[in-house]
């Protein structure tokens, strides 16, 4: 395997539905409306619904994250092959049962269509089907890093069965396929990017090097690395080496 090249196969979802179980084909996805595993004791409920960005004037809890669904097929994050779903994306929202919102500095709870700008790099496309995962904590919860990570982890666990099915789809049947190479340009000025990211506490954190693209499992918090600089290649970055916890 060429460690310089990352291939991303994109499977375009034309039909996303709620059903009794997970089922993925080259162009359709069925998911349950709640986690099929037992949820953490601190949680009151986790509900999942499908949303059309063109018709979403209803109230939501604060948006904790927008997450792509992607999985490693060959190699590690940054090289080899990944399979990714397009036409579908995930919004994670969270609060406690009394309405206390899970955020660090400013909440985006309110009407969904007024609280998100669709069609940016960090938000769903208005043509996507959005999987809205709403996590409700019991009222006696402690707002700390551990609780927030548990919430992110619950969403990650809900998505993992989709990734497991996505791994075994045949890349040749993908709607699109992209090869990203780390190309050197000797003699040109050497340029680097420095990205300063949050690393101070609950809902003010970032996780790197999880097993799955944009995943949580095995990820390392930048706070636990004392915020020290680390070097990532462009391919690691675009293969989901970072999971935001903001």
């Amino acid at each position, binding site marked *: 395997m060429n460690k310089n090249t990352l291939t991303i196969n994109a499977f375009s979802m034309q039909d996303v539905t709620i059903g009794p179980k997970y089922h993925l084909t080259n162009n359709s996805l069925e998911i349950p409306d709640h986690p099929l595993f037992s949820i953490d004791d601190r949680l009151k409920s986790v509900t999942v619904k499908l949303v059309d960005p063109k018709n979403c004037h209803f109230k939501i809890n604060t*948006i904790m*994250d*927008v*997450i*792509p669904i*992607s999985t490693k097929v060959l190699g590690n994050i940054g090289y080899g092959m990944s399979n990714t779903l397009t036409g579908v*994306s995930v919004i994670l929202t969270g609060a406690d049962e009394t309405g206390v919102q899970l955020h*660090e*500095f*400013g*909440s*985006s709870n*309110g009407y969904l269509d*007024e*609280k*998100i*700008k669709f069609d*940016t*790099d*960090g*938000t*769903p496309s208005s043509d996507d089907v959005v999987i809205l995962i709403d996590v409700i904590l019991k009222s006696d919860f402690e707002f700390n890093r551990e609780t927030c990570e548990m919430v992110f982890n619950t969403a990650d666990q809900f998505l993992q069965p989709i990734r497991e099915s996505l791994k075994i789809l045949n890349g040749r049947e993908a709607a699109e396929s992209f090869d990203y190479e780390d*190309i050197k*340009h000797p003699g*040109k*000025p*050497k*340029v*680097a*990017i*420095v*990205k*300063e*990211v*949050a*690393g*101070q*506490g609950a809902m*003010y954190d*970032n996780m*790197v090097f999880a097993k799955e*693209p*944009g995943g949580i499992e095995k990820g390392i918090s930048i*706070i636990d690395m004392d*915020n*020290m*600089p*680390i*070097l*990532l*290649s*462009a391919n690691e*970055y*675009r293969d*989901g*080496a*970072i*999971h*935001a916890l*903001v």
Partner: protein
Amino acid sequence: MGIGPSTKETTMHHFHDPLVRVVSSDPDVDFQGVILVGTPQDNYLKNLVGRRTAFWLEAMRTNGAIISADGWGNSDVDFMNTMTEIGNKGISIVGLKFIGKQAGFVVENEHTKFVLDINKSKSGTETEVVGENNLNEKDAHKALGLLKLKMRKDGQVTK
């Protein structure tokens, strides 16, 4: 202050990061990679992580760098400190950050004029609308253009 809904970078944003996309695909620069650095609470650590970032760039023989931040407020201390540490190594440095009408620099120095504002809101404020004030592809092109000019002015480009 910290990271508001309109400036926070979601997992999806990192996945599609426009700055990485633009700089890594430009044939006029030899792209080296992304240094990801956190924003500690402690002042000693704030200075330390900025210094370590500058040491790395120097060891990589970097000519120019673009620094971006996903928040504002106390993280501006890290931002300006890291810019200064990098600049002191003789490396050309430009920045991208939300400024608008509420997040200007408390203290200005020789580097602040090379920081571009990524605000998109009409009000120039943290609007609490997710995605509204994020760095986009246009910001990335502007920053790379400015960096190319600055590298030329700083004598980083010999030809």
